[in-house]
Protein backbone atom coordinates (compact mmCIF):
# COMPACT_ATOMS: atom_id res chain seq x y z
CA UNK A 1 0.00 0.00 0.00
CA UNK A 2 1.35 3.41 -0.84
CA UNK A 3 1.63 6.00 1.89
CA UNK A 4 -0.93 8.23 0.25
CA UNK A 5 -3.45 5.45 0.47
CA UNK A 6 -2.68 4.83 4.11
CA UNK A 7 -3.08 8.50 4.93
CA UNK A 8 -6.32 8.64 3.09
CA UNK A 9 -7.58 5.65 4.97
CA UNK A 10 -6.57 7.18 8.25
CA UNK A 11 -8.38 10.37 7.41
CA UNK A 12 -11.43 8.37 6.46
CA UNK A 13 -11.21 6.47 9.73
CA UNK A 14 -11.10 9.70 11.69
CA UNK A 15 -13.92 11.27 9.80
CA UNK A 16 -15.89 8.14 10.32
CA UNK A 17 -15.19 8.01 14.00
CA UNK A 18 -16.47 11.56 14.44
CA UNK A 19 -19.58 10.62 12.57
CA UNK A 20 -19.74 7.53 14.66
CA UNK A 21 -19.50 9.67 17.76
CA UNK A 22 -22.30 11.93 16.61
CA UNK A 23 -24.44 9.02 15.54
CA UNK A 24 -24.06 7.55 18.98
CA UNK A 25 -24.80 10.73 20.88
CA UNK A 26 -27.12 12.44 18.46
CA UNK A 27 -29.24 13.95 21.19
CA UNK A 28 -26.18 16.00 22.15
CA UNK A 29 -27.06 18.51 19.46
CA UNK A 30 -30.49 18.93 20.98
CA UNK A 31 -28.92 19.50 24.38
CA UNK A 32 -26.48 22.05 23.02
CA UNK A 33 -29.22 23.99 21.27
CA UNK A 34 -31.25 23.99 24.46
CA UNK A 35 -28.30 25.26 26.50
CA UNK A 36 -27.51 28.00 24.02
CA UNK A 37 -31.10 29.20 23.92
CA UNK A 38 -31.41 29.23 27.71
CA UNK A 39 -28.09 31.04 28.08
CA UNK A 40 -29.45 33.81 25.91
CA UNK A 41 -32.73 33.94 27.76
CA UNK A 42 -31.42 33.97 31.32
CA UNK A 43 -28.10 35.33 32.55
CA UNK A 44 -28.39 33.15 35.62
CA UNK A 45 -28.46 29.99 33.57
CA UNK A 46 -24.82 29.43 32.73
CA UNK A 47 -23.40 30.12 36.19
CA UNK A 48 -21.38 27.58 38.15
CA UNK A 49 -23.99 27.55 40.82
CA UNK A 50 -26.84 26.85 38.48
CA UNK A 51 -24.96 24.24 36.54
CA UNK A 52 -24.32 22.45 39.81
CA UNK A 53 -28.01 22.77 40.60
CA UNK A 54 -28.84 21.05 37.35
CA UNK A 55 -26.25 18.37 38.02
CA UNK A 56 -27.83 17.67 41.36
CA UNK A 57 -31.42 17.85 40.18
CA UNK A 58 -30.73 15.47 37.33
CA UNK A 59 -29.13 12.84 39.48
CA UNK A 60 -32.19 10.90 40.67
CA UNK A 61 -33.61 10.63 37.19
CA UNK A 62 -30.17 9.88 35.76
CA UNK A 63 -29.80 6.92 38.11
CA UNK A 64 -33.27 5.61 37.32
CA UNK A 65 -32.66 6.12 33.61
CA UNK A 66 -29.41 4.17 33.49
CA UNK A 67 -31.18 1.33 35.23
CA UNK A 68 -34.04 1.64 32.76
CA UNK A 69 -31.65 1.49 29.82
CA UNK A 70 -30.99 -2.20 30.42
CA UNK A 71 -34.60 -3.43 30.11
CA UNK A 72 -35.10 -1.20 27.10
CA UNK A 73 -31.95 -2.59 25.47
CA UNK A 74 -33.55 -6.02 25.74
CA UNK A 75 -36.73 -4.69 24.11
CA UNK A 76 -38.43 -4.60 27.50
CA UNK A 77 -39.49 -1.95 29.98
CA UNK A 78 -39.56 -1.44 33.73
CA UNK A 79 -42.60 0.44 35.00
CA UNK A 80 -41.88 -0.35 38.62
CA UNK A 81 -38.80 1.80 39.27
CA UNK A 82 -40.70 4.61 41.00
CA UNK A 83 -42.47 2.20 43.32
CA UNK A 84 -39.30 0.24 44.00
CA UNK A 85 -37.62 3.48 44.94
CA UNK A 86 -40.40 4.10 47.46
CA UNK A 87 -40.32 0.69 49.10
CA UNK A 88 -36.53 0.79 49.27
CA UNK A 89 -36.40 4.06 51.16
CA UNK A 90 -39.31 3.22 53.41
CA UNK A 91 -37.65 0.00 54.55
CA UNK A 92 -34.41 1.90 55.02
CA UNK A 93 -36.31 4.42 57.11
CA UNK A 94 -37.85 1.71 59.25
CA UNK A 95 -34.50 0.06 59.81
CA UNK A 96 -32.29 3.04 60.39
CA UNK A 97 -34.68 5.60 61.88
CA UNK A 98 -37.64 3.82 63.44
CA UNK A 99 -35.62 0.87 64.66
CA UNK A 100 -32.50 2.95 65.13
CA UNK A 101 -30.14 0.42 63.61
CA UNK A 102 -26.84 1.25 61.97
CA UNK A 103 -26.95 3.48 58.89
CA UNK A 104 -24.78 1.03 57.00
CA UNK A 105 -27.36 -1.64 57.57
CA UNK A 106 -29.98 0.84 56.38
CA UNK A 107 -28.11 1.47 53.16
CA UNK A 108 -27.65 -2.23 52.59
CA UNK A 109 -31.34 -2.83 53.20
CA UNK A 110 -32.28 -0.03 50.79
CA UNK A 111 -30.17 -1.42 47.97
CA UNK A 112 -31.10 -5.01 48.74
CA UNK A 113 -34.82 -4.30 48.74
CA UNK A 114 -34.43 -2.49 45.42
CA UNK A 115 -32.47 -5.34 43.90
CA UNK A 116 -34.88 -7.82 45.44
CA UNK A 117 -37.91 -6.33 43.79
CA UNK A 118 -35.95 -6.11 40.56
CA UNK A 119 -35.16 -9.77 40.92
CA UNK A 120 -38.86 -10.41 41.42
CA UNK A 121 -39.53 -8.64 38.13
CA UNK A 122 -36.97 -10.79 36.41
CA UNK A 123 -38.29 -14.01 37.89
CA UNK A 124 -41.90 -13.17 37.07
CA UNK A 125 -40.92 -12.43 33.50
CA UNK A 126 -38.75 -15.47 32.91
CA UNK A 127 -40.08 -18.15 35.23
CA UNK A 128 -43.78 -17.43 34.80
CA UNK A 129 -43.07 -16.72 31.12
CA UNK A 130 -45.25 -13.61 31.16
CA UNK A 131 -45.55 -12.32 27.61
CA UNK A 132 -44.06 -8.88 28.24
CA UNK A 133 -42.35 -7.07 31.11
CA UNK A 134 -45.07 -4.45 30.90
CA UNK A 135 -47.27 -6.91 32.77
CA UNK A 136 -44.77 -8.12 35.34
CA UNK A 137 -43.48 -4.65 36.14
CA UNK A 138 -46.96 -3.13 36.18
CA UNK A 139 -47.82 -5.77 38.73
CA UNK A 140 -44.73 -5.07 40.80
CA UNK A 141 -45.34 -1.35 40.51
CA UNK A 142 -48.65 -1.78 42.33
CA UNK A 143 -47.39 -4.38 44.76
CA UNK A 144 -44.32 -2.41 45.84
CA UNK A 145 -46.24 0.84 46.24
CA UNK A 146 -48.97 -0.94 48.17
CA UNK A 147 -46.49 -2.51 50.56
CA UNK A 148 -44.68 0.80 51.01
CA UNK A 149 -47.97 2.38 52.08
CA UNK A 150 -48.98 -0.54 54.28
CA UNK A 151 -45.77 -0.88 56.27
CA UNK A 152 -45.62 2.82 57.09
CA UNK A 153 -49.33 3.59 57.32
CA UNK A 154 -48.64 6.27 54.70
CA UNK A 155 -46.52 8.29 57.12
CA UNK A 156 -43.21 9.81 56.08
CA UNK A 157 -40.00 9.10 57.92
CA UNK A 158 -37.52 11.88 58.58
CA UNK A 159 -34.30 12.40 60.48
CA UNK A 160 -31.92 10.06 58.71
CA UNK A 161 -28.36 9.69 60.00
CA UNK A 162 -25.71 11.74 58.24
CA UNK A 163 -24.09 8.79 56.54
CA UNK A 164 -27.27 7.99 54.69
CA UNK A 165 -27.73 11.61 53.73
CA UNK A 166 -24.18 11.94 52.49
CA UNK A 167 -24.74 10.92 48.88
CA UNK A 168 -27.67 13.16 48.23
CA UNK A 169 -26.62 16.12 50.29
CA UNK A 170 -22.92 16.83 50.32
CA UNK A 171 -20.53 18.53 47.96
CA UNK A 172 -16.95 17.96 46.97
CA UNK A 173 -15.78 21.49 46.29
CA UNK A 174 -18.62 22.94 44.25
CA UNK A 175 -19.62 19.56 42.83
CA UNK A 176 -22.49 17.66 44.41
CA UNK A 177 -21.59 14.16 45.52
CA UNK A 178 -24.74 12.87 43.87
CA UNK A 179 -23.47 14.00 40.49
CA UNK A 180 -20.08 12.42 41.07
CA UNK A 181 -21.98 9.27 41.91
CA UNK A 182 -23.88 9.54 38.65
CA UNK A 183 -20.68 9.91 36.68
CA UNK A 184 -19.11 6.97 38.46
CA UNK A 185 -22.18 4.83 37.93
CA UNK A 186 -22.33 5.77 34.26
CA UNK A 187 -18.69 4.86 33.75
CA UNK A 188 -19.29 1.52 35.41
CA UNK A 189 -22.32 0.95 33.20
CA UNK A 190 -20.38 1.94 30.13
CA UNK A 191 -17.74 -0.63 30.92
CA UNK A 192 -20.37 -3.15 31.88
CA UNK A 193 -22.33 -2.77 28.67
CA UNK A 194 -19.44 -2.53 26.23
CA UNK A 195 -16.76 -4.61 27.83
CA UNK A 196 -18.29 -7.46 29.77
CA UNK A 197 -19.76 -10.64 28.49
CA UNK A 198 -23.12 -10.10 30.14
CA UNK A 199 -23.21 -6.54 28.85
CA UNK A 200 -22.69 -7.64 25.28
CA UNK A 201 -25.27 -10.36 25.74
CA UNK A 202 -27.81 -7.71 26.73
CA UNK A 203 -27.38 -6.09 23.32
CA UNK A 204 -27.51 -9.47 21.61
CA UNK A 205 -30.80 -10.37 23.28
CA UNK A 206 -32.30 -7.04 22.30
CA UNK A 207 -31.08 -7.46 18.74
CA UNK A 208 -32.45 -10.95 18.23
CA UNK A 209 -33.57 -13.07 21.14
CA UNK A 210 -33.75 -16.28 19.13
CA UNK A 211 -30.31 -15.81 17.63
CA UNK A 212 -28.93 -15.01 21.06
CA UNK A 213 -30.45 -18.16 22.49
CA UNK A 214 -29.03 -20.26 19.67
CA UNK A 215 -25.64 -18.66 20.19
CA UNK A 216 -25.50 -20.15 23.63
CA UNK A 217 -26.61 -17.13 25.61
CA UNK A 218 -28.65 -17.96 28.68
CA UNK A 219 -31.39 -15.47 27.92
CA UNK A 220 -33.32 -15.96 31.15
CA UNK A 221 -30.25 -15.45 33.26
CA UNK A 222 -29.37 -12.22 31.49
CA UNK A 223 -32.93 -10.91 31.76
CA UNK A 224 -32.98 -11.63 35.48
CA UNK A 225 -29.73 -9.72 35.87
CA UNK A 226 -31.14 -6.84 33.83
CA UNK A 227 -34.23 -6.35 35.98
CA UNK A 228 -32.29 -6.89 39.18
CA UNK A 229 -29.90 -4.12 38.21
CA UNK A 230 -32.77 -1.85 37.28
CA UNK A 231 -34.25 -2.44 40.74
CA UNK A 232 -30.88 -1.86 42.36
CA UNK A 233 -30.55 1.46 40.62
CA UNK A 234 -34.01 2.42 41.84
CA UNK A 235 -32.79 1.70 45.36
CA UNK A 236 -29.68 3.80 44.78
CA UNK A 237 -31.76 6.64 43.36
CA UNK A 238 -33.86 6.38 46.50
CA UNK A 239 -30.78 6.69 48.65
CA UNK A 240 -29.87 9.90 46.84
CA UNK A 241 -33.42 11.19 47.19
CA UNK A 242 -33.44 10.57 50.93
CA UNK A 243 -30.18 12.39 51.27
CA UNK A 244 -31.54 15.23 49.24
CA UNK A 245 -34.75 15.84 51.17
CA UNK A 246 -33.84 14.08 54.43
CA UNK A 247 -37.06 12.17 54.45
CA UNK A 248 -38.67 9.14 53.00
CA UNK A 249 -42.33 9.14 52.03
CA UNK A 250 -44.34 6.30 50.55
CA UNK A 251 -45.51 8.24 47.50
CA UNK A 252 -41.92 9.05 46.56
CA UNK A 253 -41.05 8.38 42.96
CA UNK A 254 -44.65 8.43 41.77
CA UNK A 255 -44.65 8.28 37.97
CA UNK A 256 -40.87 8.74 37.84
CA UNK A 257 -40.73 5.85 35.37
CA UNK A 258 -42.02 8.18 32.66
CA UNK A 259 -39.11 10.60 33.03
CA UNK A 260 -36.65 7.73 33.13
CA UNK A 261 -38.06 6.13 29.99
CA UNK A 262 -38.14 9.51 28.28
CA UNK A 263 -34.46 10.08 29.09
CA UNK A 264 -33.51 6.72 27.63
CA UNK A 265 -35.52 7.22 24.46
CA UNK A 266 -34.49 10.83 23.95
CA UNK A 267 -30.95 9.51 24.35
CA UNK A 268 -31.38 7.47 21.22
CA UNK A 269 -32.30 4.03 22.49
CA UNK A 270 -34.88 1.99 20.63
CA UNK A 271 -37.92 0.34 22.11
CA UNK A 272 -37.29 -2.54 19.77
CA UNK A 273 -34.12 -3.38 21.61
CA UNK A 274 -30.44 -3.68 20.86
CA UNK A 275 -29.88 0.03 20.30
CA UNK A 276 -28.91 2.60 22.92
CA UNK A 277 -25.90 3.89 24.82
CA UNK A 278 -24.98 4.94 28.30
CA UNK A 279 -23.88 8.42 27.25
CA UNK A 280 -26.98 8.96 25.16
CA UNK A 281 -29.03 8.20 28.24
CA UNK A 282 -27.05 10.71 30.28
CA UNK A 283 -27.72 13.34 27.65
CA UNK A 284 -31.40 12.44 27.68
CA UNK A 285 -31.52 12.88 31.45
CA UNK A 286 -29.67 16.20 31.19
CA UNK A 287 -32.08 17.50 28.55
CA UNK A 288 -34.99 16.89 30.88
CA UNK A 289 -33.22 18.45 33.86
CA UNK A 290 -31.98 21.49 31.92
CA UNK A 291 -35.45 22.05 30.57
CA UNK A 292 -37.10 21.94 34.01
CA UNK A 293 -34.44 24.19 35.46
CA UNK A 294 -34.71 26.68 32.63
CA UNK A 295 -38.46 26.91 32.95
CA UNK A 296 -38.11 27.66 36.67
CA UNK A 297 -35.45 30.28 36.04
CA UNK A 298 -37.62 31.99 33.48
CA UNK A 299 -40.53 31.77 35.91
CA UNK A 300 -42.72 30.30 33.21
CA UNK A 301 -46.17 29.70 34.64
CA UNK A 302 -47.15 26.16 35.48
CA UNK A 303 -49.64 25.69 32.70
CA UNK A 304 -47.23 26.84 30.01
CA UNK A 305 -44.47 24.68 31.47
CA UNK A 306 -46.29 21.50 30.54
CA UNK A 307 -46.86 22.54 26.97
CA UNK A 308 -43.27 23.73 26.57
CA UNK A 309 -41.89 20.45 27.92
CA UNK A 310 -43.98 18.58 25.38
CA UNK A 311 -42.75 20.69 22.52
CA UNK A 312 -39.10 20.49 23.55
CA UNK A 313 -39.20 16.69 23.89
CA UNK A 314 -40.45 16.41 20.34
CA UNK A 315 -38.03 19.02 19.06
CA UNK A 316 -35.00 17.43 20.75
CA UNK A 317 -35.70 14.12 19.11
CA UNK A 318 -36.55 15.73 15.80
CA UNK A 319 -33.17 17.44 15.67
CA UNK A 320 -31.63 13.99 15.89
CA UNK A 321 -33.88 12.70 13.12
CA UNK A 322 -32.81 15.57 10.88
CA UNK A 323 -29.13 14.99 11.61
CA UNK A 324 -29.40 11.32 10.75
CA UNK A 325 -31.21 12.09 7.54
CA UNK A 326 -28.50 14.53 6.52
CA UNK A 327 -25.68 12.20 7.37
CA UNK A 328 -27.30 9.58 5.19
CA UNK A 329 -27.44 11.92 2.26
CA UNK A 330 -23.71 12.61 2.33
Amino acid at each position, binding site marked *: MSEAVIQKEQAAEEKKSFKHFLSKFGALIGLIILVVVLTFMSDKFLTV*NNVMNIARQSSINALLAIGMLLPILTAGIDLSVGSILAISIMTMGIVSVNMGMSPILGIIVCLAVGAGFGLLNGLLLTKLRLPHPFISTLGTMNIARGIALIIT*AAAPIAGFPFMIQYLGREFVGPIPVSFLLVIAVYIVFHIFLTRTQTGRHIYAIGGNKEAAHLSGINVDRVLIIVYTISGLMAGLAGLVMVGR*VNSAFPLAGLSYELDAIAAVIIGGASFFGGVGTVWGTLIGAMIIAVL*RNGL*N*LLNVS*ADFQMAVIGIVIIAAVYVDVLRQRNSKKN
Partner: protein
Amino acid sequence: GCSGGGDDASGSGDGGGNESVSVVLKTLSSPYWKYVEAGAKAAGEELGVDVTVVGPSAESQVIEQVNMLEDQVSQSPGAIVVSPSQPDTVVPVLEQAAQTDLPILLIDSDADFEGKTTFIGTENFTAGQEGGKLLASMLEKGDKVALIAGALGNPATDDRIKGAKEALEAAGMVIVAEQPGDSDKTKAMSVMENILENNGDVKGVFAANDDMALGVLRAVEAKGLDTKVIGTDGTQEAVESIISGGLAGTIAQSPYNMGYQGVENALKAIKGETVEERIDSGIDIISAENAQEQLDFLKSISE
Protein backbone atom coordinates in the same frame (compact mmCIF):
# COMPACT_ATOMS: atom_id res chain seq x y z
CA GLY B 1 -84.43 0.45 49.25
CA CYS B 2 -86.89 3.04 50.36
CA SER B 3 -86.32 5.59 53.04
CA GLY B 4 -85.08 4.14 56.25
CA GLY B 5 -83.89 1.07 54.42
CA GLY B 6 -80.35 1.98 55.28
CA ASP B 7 -80.97 1.25 58.93
CA ASP B 8 -82.39 -2.18 58.21
CA ALA B 9 -79.58 -3.14 55.92
CA SER B 10 -76.87 -2.14 58.30
CA GLY B 11 -78.73 -3.69 61.19
CA SER B 12 -79.04 -7.09 59.60
CA GLY B 13 -75.69 -7.00 57.87
CA ASP B 14 -73.39 -6.03 60.66
CA GLY B 15 -75.19 -7.25 63.74
CA GLY B 16 -75.58 -5.55 67.07
CA GLY B 17 -78.04 -2.99 65.74
CA ASN B 18 -75.17 -0.64 64.94
CA GLU B 19 -75.56 2.26 62.63
CA SER B 20 -73.10 2.36 59.74
CA VAL B 21 -71.37 5.31 58.12
CA SER B 22 -69.29 5.20 54.96
CA VAL B 23 -66.55 7.77 54.66
CA VAL B 24 -65.11 8.40 51.20
CA LEU B 25 -61.95 10.51 51.24
CA LYS B 26 -59.77 11.99 48.52
CA THR B 27 -57.09 9.44 49.24
CA LEU B 28 -55.66 7.50 52.14
CA SER B 29 -52.07 7.73 50.98
CA SER B 30 -51.03 10.85 52.85
CA PRO B 31 -50.68 11.78 56.52
CA TYR B 32 -53.33 14.47 56.28
CA TRP B 33 -56.00 12.03 55.18
CA LYS B 34 -54.78 9.48 57.67
CA TYR B 35 -55.65 12.03 60.37
CA VAL B 36 -59.14 12.39 58.95
CA GLU B 37 -59.45 8.62 58.96
CA ALA B 38 -58.23 8.48 62.55
CA GLY B 39 -60.84 11.05 63.60
CA ALA B 40 -63.63 9.19 61.85
CA LYS B 41 -62.60 5.86 63.33
CA ALA B 42 -62.29 7.35 66.82
CA ALA B 43 -65.81 8.73 66.56
CA GLY B 44 -66.99 5.33 65.44
CA GLU B 45 -65.45 3.66 68.47
CA GLU B 46 -66.73 6.18 70.92
CA LEU B 47 -70.23 6.44 69.52
CA GLY B 48 -70.65 2.79 68.61
CA VAL B 49 -70.98 3.30 64.86
CA ASP B 50 -69.66 1.01 62.14
CA VAL B 51 -67.34 3.26 60.18
CA THR B 52 -65.90 2.34 56.80
CA VAL B 53 -63.25 4.68 55.46
CA VAL B 54 -62.17 4.38 51.84
CA GLY B 55 -60.24 6.48 49.38
CA PRO B 56 -58.31 6.02 46.15
CA SER B 57 -54.56 5.66 45.92
CA ALA B 58 -54.04 9.30 44.95
CA GLU B 59 -55.98 12.53 44.97
CA SER B 60 -55.72 12.66 41.20
CA GLN B 61 -57.78 9.47 40.88
CA VAL B 62 -60.96 11.47 40.62
CA ILE B 63 -63.20 9.05 38.79
CA GLU B 64 -61.93 6.22 40.94
CA GLN B 65 -63.25 8.19 43.90
CA VAL B 66 -66.62 8.52 42.21
CA ASN B 67 -66.61 4.76 41.62
CA MET B 68 -65.84 4.15 45.27
CA LEU B 69 -68.65 6.44 46.27
CA GLU B 70 -71.02 4.52 44.02
CA ASP B 71 -69.88 1.22 45.42
CA GLN B 72 -70.41 2.50 48.96
CA VAL B 73 -73.86 3.84 48.15
CA SER B 74 -74.84 0.49 46.66
CA GLN B 75 -74.04 -1.12 50.01
CA SER B 76 -76.78 0.99 51.63
CA PRO B 77 -74.98 2.50 54.59
CA GLY B 78 -76.80 4.68 57.17
CA ALA B 79 -75.03 7.80 55.98
CA ILE B 80 -72.31 8.94 53.66
CA VAL B 81 -69.47 11.31 54.53
CA VAL B 82 -67.51 12.45 51.54
CA SER B 83 -64.64 14.75 50.73
CA PRO B 84 -64.59 15.26 46.97
CA SER B 85 -61.32 15.72 45.08
CA GLN B 86 -63.14 17.59 42.32
CA PRO B 87 -66.30 18.88 44.04
CA ASP B 88 -68.58 18.85 41.02
CA THR B 89 -67.83 15.28 40.12
CA VAL B 90 -69.63 13.69 43.04
CA VAL B 91 -72.84 15.63 42.58
CA PRO B 92 -74.60 13.24 40.17
CA VAL B 93 -73.97 10.25 42.45
CA LEU B 94 -75.03 12.19 45.51
CA GLU B 95 -78.22 13.32 43.80
CA GLN B 96 -78.99 9.72 43.00
CA ALA B 97 -78.23 8.63 46.54
CA ALA B 98 -80.26 11.44 48.08
CA GLN B 99 -83.39 10.08 46.45
CA THR B 100 -83.40 7.42 49.16
CA ASP B 101 -83.11 10.07 51.91
CA LEU B 102 -79.61 8.95 52.68
CA PRO B 103 -77.92 11.60 54.82
CA ILE B 104 -74.91 13.02 53.02
CA LEU B 105 -72.23 15.05 54.74
CA LEU B 106 -69.35 16.80 53.07
CA ILE B 107 -66.06 17.36 54.81
CA ASP B 108 -62.91 19.29 53.97
CA SER B 109 -64.07 20.34 50.50
CA ASP B 110 -67.59 21.54 49.83
CA ALA B 111 -69.64 20.73 46.77
CA ASP B 112 -72.51 22.51 45.10
CA PHE B 113 -75.08 19.90 46.11
CA GLU B 114 -78.41 20.99 47.48
CA GLY B 115 -79.35 17.84 49.35
CA LYS B 116 -76.37 17.76 51.66
CA THR B 117 -76.90 17.56 55.40
CA THR B 118 -73.96 19.76 56.19
CA PHE B 119 -70.47 20.82 55.26
CA ILE B 120 -67.79 20.44 57.88
CA GLY B 121 -64.46 22.10 57.30
CA THR B 122 -62.76 25.31 56.42
CA GLU B 123 -62.23 26.80 53.04
CA ASN B 124 -58.87 26.07 51.53
CA PHE B 125 -58.86 29.66 50.42
CA THR B 126 -59.08 30.73 54.07
CA ALA B 127 -56.28 28.40 55.01
CA GLY B 128 -54.15 29.97 52.33
CA GLN B 129 -55.06 33.45 53.58
CA GLU B 130 -54.06 32.54 57.10
CA GLY B 131 -50.77 31.18 55.81
CA GLY B 132 -50.17 34.36 53.87
CA LYS B 133 -50.94 36.48 56.91
CA LEU B 134 -48.66 34.39 59.11
CA LEU B 135 -45.82 34.75 56.62
CA ALA B 136 -46.40 38.48 56.22
CA SER B 137 -46.32 38.92 59.98
CA MET B 138 -42.78 37.58 60.01
CA LEU B 139 -41.54 39.85 57.21
CA GLU B 140 -41.16 43.51 56.38
CA LYS B 141 -43.27 45.31 53.83
CA GLY B 142 -41.72 45.03 50.36
CA ASP B 143 -39.94 41.74 51.04
CA LYS B 144 -39.74 39.22 48.23
CA VAL B 145 -41.78 36.06 48.58
CA ALA B 146 -42.36 32.95 46.48
CA LEU B 147 -45.31 30.59 46.16
CA ILE B 148 -44.99 26.84 45.58
CA ALA B 149 -48.19 25.37 44.21
CA GLY B 150 -49.35 21.78 43.91
CA ALA B 151 -50.14 20.16 40.60
CA LEU B 152 -52.04 22.76 38.66
CA GLY B 153 -55.72 21.90 38.51
CA ASN B 154 -55.87 20.45 42.01
CA PRO B 155 -58.60 22.65 43.52
CA ALA B 156 -57.42 22.33 47.12
CA THR B 157 -53.86 23.48 46.53
CA ASP B 158 -54.94 26.02 43.90
CA ASP B 159 -57.33 27.65 46.38
CA ARG B 160 -54.67 27.82 49.06
CA ILE B 161 -52.31 29.55 46.70
CA LYS B 162 -55.02 32.04 45.74
CA GLY B 163 -55.71 32.80 49.39
CA ALA B 164 -52.07 33.20 50.25
CA LYS B 165 -51.46 35.40 47.26
CA GLU B 166 -54.28 37.73 48.24
CA ALA B 167 -53.10 38.02 51.83
CA LEU B 168 -49.46 38.57 50.89
CA GLU B 169 -50.26 41.19 48.32
CA ALA B 170 -52.56 42.94 50.77
CA ALA B 171 -49.70 43.04 53.24
CA GLY B 172 -47.43 44.63 50.66
CA MET B 173 -45.17 41.71 49.87
CA VAL B 174 -43.64 41.30 46.41
CA ILE B 175 -44.33 37.91 44.83
CA VAL B 176 -41.35 37.12 42.62
CA ALA B 177 -42.11 33.55 41.69
CA GLU B 178 -45.03 31.17 41.55
CA GLN B 179 -44.04 27.68 40.46
CA PRO B 180 -45.54 24.20 40.66
CA GLY B 181 -44.02 21.56 42.95
CA ASP B 182 -46.60 18.88 42.09
CA SER B 183 -47.09 18.15 45.82
CA ASP B 184 -43.77 16.28 45.63
CA LYS B 185 -41.07 17.00 48.17
CA THR B 186 -38.20 16.35 45.81
CA LYS B 187 -39.63 18.41 42.99
CA ALA B 188 -40.40 21.29 45.33
CA MET B 189 -36.80 21.25 46.47
CA SER B 190 -35.49 21.43 42.91
CA VAL B 191 -37.92 24.20 42.07
CA MET B 192 -36.82 26.21 45.09
CA GLU B 193 -33.15 25.77 44.24
CA ASN B 194 -33.87 27.18 40.83
CA ILE B 195 -35.90 30.06 42.20
CA LEU B 196 -33.08 30.96 44.56
CA GLU B 197 -30.76 31.12 41.59
CA ASN B 198 -32.78 34.01 40.24
CA ASN B 199 -33.84 35.54 43.55
CA GLY B 200 -31.26 34.85 46.22
CA ASP B 201 -32.97 37.41 48.43
CA VAL B 202 -36.37 35.75 48.78
CA LYS B 203 -37.42 36.32 52.37
CA GLY B 204 -40.42 34.06 52.59
CA VAL B 205 -42.09 31.10 50.89
CA PHE B 206 -45.62 29.78 51.13
CA ALA B 207 -46.10 26.19 50.02
CA ALA B 208 -49.51 24.68 49.37
CA ASN B 209 -48.75 21.62 51.46
CA ASP B 210 -46.28 20.58 54.12
CA ASP B 211 -44.39 18.07 51.98
CA MET B 212 -43.48 20.80 49.54
CA ALA B 213 -42.68 23.19 52.38
CA LEU B 214 -40.19 20.70 53.78
CA GLY B 215 -38.58 20.30 50.38
CA VAL B 216 -38.34 24.07 50.04
CA LEU B 217 -36.85 24.32 53.52
CA ARG B 218 -34.17 21.85 52.52
CA ALA B 219 -33.15 24.01 49.56
CA VAL B 220 -33.15 27.14 51.70
CA GLU B 221 -31.06 25.56 54.46
CA ALA B 222 -28.55 24.23 51.98
CA LYS B 223 -27.90 27.83 50.95
CA GLY B 224 -27.60 28.89 54.56
CA LEU B 225 -30.45 31.38 54.23
CA ASP B 226 -32.98 32.12 56.91
CA THR B 227 -35.90 32.42 54.55
CA LYS B 228 -39.22 31.83 56.34
CA VAL B 229 -41.11 28.85 54.99
CA ILE B 230 -44.80 28.27 55.72
CA GLY B 231 -46.58 25.06 54.87
CA THR B 232 -50.15 23.86 55.01
CA ASP B 233 -51.77 20.75 56.55
CA GLY B 234 -50.02 20.55 59.92
CA THR B 235 -48.50 17.11 59.48
CA GLN B 236 -46.37 15.62 62.19
CA GLU B 237 -43.20 15.98 60.15
CA ALA B 238 -43.92 19.68 59.65
CA VAL B 239 -44.69 20.26 63.29
CA GLU B 240 -41.50 18.52 64.34
CA SER B 241 -39.63 20.70 61.90
CA ILE B 242 -41.14 23.81 63.48
CA ILE B 243 -40.05 22.66 66.91
CA SER B 244 -36.51 22.10 65.74
CA GLY B 245 -36.42 25.55 64.19
CA GLY B 246 -36.97 24.55 60.58
CA LEU B 247 -40.30 25.60 59.18
CA ALA B 248 -41.62 28.94 60.33
CA GLY B 249 -45.16 27.65 60.61
CA THR B 250 -47.95 25.66 59.10
CA ILE B 251 -51.68 25.99 58.75
CA ALA B 252 -53.61 23.01 60.06
CA GLN B 253 -57.18 22.52 59.00
CA SER B 254 -57.99 20.17 61.85
CA PRO B 255 -58.26 17.03 59.78
CA TYR B 256 -58.90 14.93 62.86
CA ASN B 257 -61.83 17.08 63.88
CA MET B 258 -63.31 16.91 60.41
CA GLY B 259 -63.27 13.15 60.49
CA TYR B 260 -64.61 12.99 64.00
CA GLN B 261 -67.33 15.55 63.51
CA GLY B 262 -68.25 14.02 60.19
CA VAL B 263 -69.18 10.73 61.78
CA GLU B 264 -70.66 12.38 64.86
CA ASN B 265 -73.03 14.47 62.79
CA ALA B 266 -73.79 11.62 60.43
CA LEU B 267 -75.08 9.69 63.41
CA LYS B 268 -77.20 12.66 64.42
CA ALA B 269 -78.65 12.81 60.93
CA ILE B 270 -79.42 9.12 60.95
CA LYS B 271 -81.24 9.52 64.20
CA GLY B 272 -83.18 12.40 62.77
CA GLU B 273 -81.64 15.05 65.01
CA THR B 274 -80.97 18.43 63.50
CA VAL B 275 -77.51 19.18 62.19
CA GLU B 276 -76.14 22.64 61.58
CA GLU B 277 -75.93 23.48 57.92
CA ARG B 278 -72.34 24.54 58.12
CA ILE B 279 -69.84 23.50 60.74
CA ASP B 280 -66.48 25.18 61.00
CA SER B 281 -63.93 22.63 62.08
CA GLY B 282 -61.47 25.39 62.77
CA ILE B 283 -58.03 26.35 61.61
CA ASP B 284 -54.96 25.98 63.75
CA ILE B 285 -52.13 28.34 63.03
CA ILE B 286 -49.09 26.50 64.22
CA SER B 287 -45.83 28.23 64.89
CA ALA B 288 -42.98 27.82 67.30
CA GLU B 289 -45.18 28.80 70.27
CA ASN B 290 -47.83 26.10 69.99
CA ALA B 291 -45.99 23.45 68.03
CA GLN B 292 -45.22 21.16 70.93
CA GLU B 293 -48.88 21.08 71.95
CA GLN B 294 -49.89 20.16 68.43
CA LEU B 295 -47.27 17.45 68.27
CA ASP B 296 -48.53 15.87 71.45
CA PHE B 297 -52.01 15.90 70.03
CA LEU B 298 -50.94 14.33 66.75
CA LYS B 299 -49.04 11.64 68.58
CA SER B 300 -52.04 10.88 70.73
CA ILE B 301 -54.34 10.39 67.77
CA SER B 302 -51.98 8.19 65.83
CA GLU B 303 -51.58 5.98 68.93
